[in-house]
């Protein structure tokens, strides 16, 4: 059985491993990138899609449309959710949801900006369990409320941290 498995991995006569032919031809296909760009612009024309580099796109959207756009990325485009980055910026609290289209190596970072006085956004746990820990981390570190996030226990901070203890806020300390 092992021999059969190994043979598919290009074994030479002496049992040593030699090179395969494992290139990824679809990876650099320009029409694919154009197609995805077109789909994004058509689905949500109000958004600001910024193609910073070939495989690094940033897409700024309105916070109230987050679930709609994330659903499009996760289910329609078939992205994998990589992680979410929260930051306290002068414009407000920013969350970047990093979605990866692995067959193209393309990373689409969806950006939402929330006001400093009442940072609230819909939870993406309706799409999959993979979003939960990223949201719980941002919830405790930046004090952003996620509507619909069932489990809001502390993830990284000690269980007895006070409710207004948010270390990633610029005002902290």
């Amino acid at each position, binding site marked *: 059985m092992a021999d059969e498995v190994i043979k598919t991995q290009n074994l030479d006569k002496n049992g040593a491993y030699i090179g395969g*032919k494992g290139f990824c031809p679809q990876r650099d296909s320009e029409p694919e990138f154009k197609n995805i760009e077109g789909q994004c612009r058509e689905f949500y024309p109000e958004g600001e899609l910024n193609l910073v580099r070939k495989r690094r796109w940033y897409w700024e959207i309105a916070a109230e449309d987050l679930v709609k756009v994330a659903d499009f990325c996760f289910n329609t485009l078939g992205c994998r959710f990589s992680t979410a980055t929260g*930051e306290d910026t002068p414009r407000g609290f920013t969350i970047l949801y990093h979605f990866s289209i692995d067959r193209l*190596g393309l990373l689409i970072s969806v950006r939402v900006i929330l006001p400093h006085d009442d940072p609230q956004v819909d939870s993406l746990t309706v799409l999959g369990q993979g979003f939960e820990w990223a949201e719980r981390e941002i919830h405790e570190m930046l004090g952003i409320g996620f509507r619909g996030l069932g489990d809001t226990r502390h993830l*990284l901070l000690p269980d007895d941290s006070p409710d207004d203890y948010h270390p990633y806020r610029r005002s902290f300390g």
Partner: protein
Amino acid sequence: MAELERKIIPIGPFHPLQEEAEYFKLKVEGEKVVGLDIQLGYMHRGHEKICEGKTYDQIPFVVERICGICSTSHPFACVQAIEDAAGIEIPPRAAYVRTIVGELERIHSHLLWAGLAGHFLGYNTVWMWAWKYRESVLEISELITGNRNHYAMFKPGGVRRDIEGGMIPPLLATLDELDKKLTMLTKAVLDDPMLHKRLEGVGVLTREKAIEYSVEGPTGRASGLKIDVRKDDPHAAYDWVEWEEIVCQEGDVFAKTKVRLLECLESTKIIRQCLRKLKDLPEGEIDARMEHGPDGEGVGRYEAPRGEVFHYVKGDGSMYPVRYKIRAPSSMNIKSNEVAVLGGSVADAAIILAAVDPCYCCTERIAAFNTKGKFLYNWNDLLKLSQEKTARMGGGS
């Protein structure tokens, strides 16, 4: 029949299944696992915040300390994030050296996992073989970088040390030896009837759940997801050499074992090609200078032994980042244990929780009590249960 009492077996916060201290609350009815609650946070050290106070030259050294086993994965992703933000191209020699160091780490990490998995099953022969062969990988690492682990090889723009021409022939000879050993170990493990019985169909993570939990690395590839950052998002020298992605469909612990062992063989293939190409390249630069800090955002991704390491950096033109984000693969993979462990027996829990390879270390301290305070198991008992199951099936050593 009387209804079985639901009990909780706490695993952790400190025990040898995990590199970091985590707390698994295993909910069981009799022998059957019916739920899992995972609590993190015991090892939170605030690396993201520390990095904001360091210069771009210092950050690779800080992030190298995040993990002891995959110590080069974080610097790999880190320097790529900085280079992405600053728009730096690295010299070809540096790309080959990075690839070689990254792959050496993958082999020793996978062998470490295979050994410990064998130990958890009470199959110590696998443990002894795997760790013995791992030593020769560490020796190659020491020859190239000066260290068995924590190589400190990477810097934004390139690498800190070159692999010189004279070193290459002995390295190739050592690799040939290593290949034979790895092939033997792989065949022995994949052909072992006891390991088939013990691991097939155990801790299955279906493809659908793998997508829902966004798992990655060998955990995802064992569930039929064809994802590998080295292939998908080309960097360093990974698209200048030929190699195969290993993908299995079954999603059980055996598939994860198969993926990891076969990946070791692919890694030696990559290293061998890189060394040969490095030999043919003229001596030259191994780093591109970074004159000032990046002004903008950058993302670095690298396929660590456990999956995609993700680093995000945002700079304002100074030598310090404004925001630094780190996400290690285990933080996506560990959560999938919630579904993988369901319906299995307590004796299988140890190997299922270990199958996502959440690194191992440190002290062990678990105890299980029922709701009336009566002592049930400690960690050693759980390990013994696992090992006894293998023995009952007529295997082990």
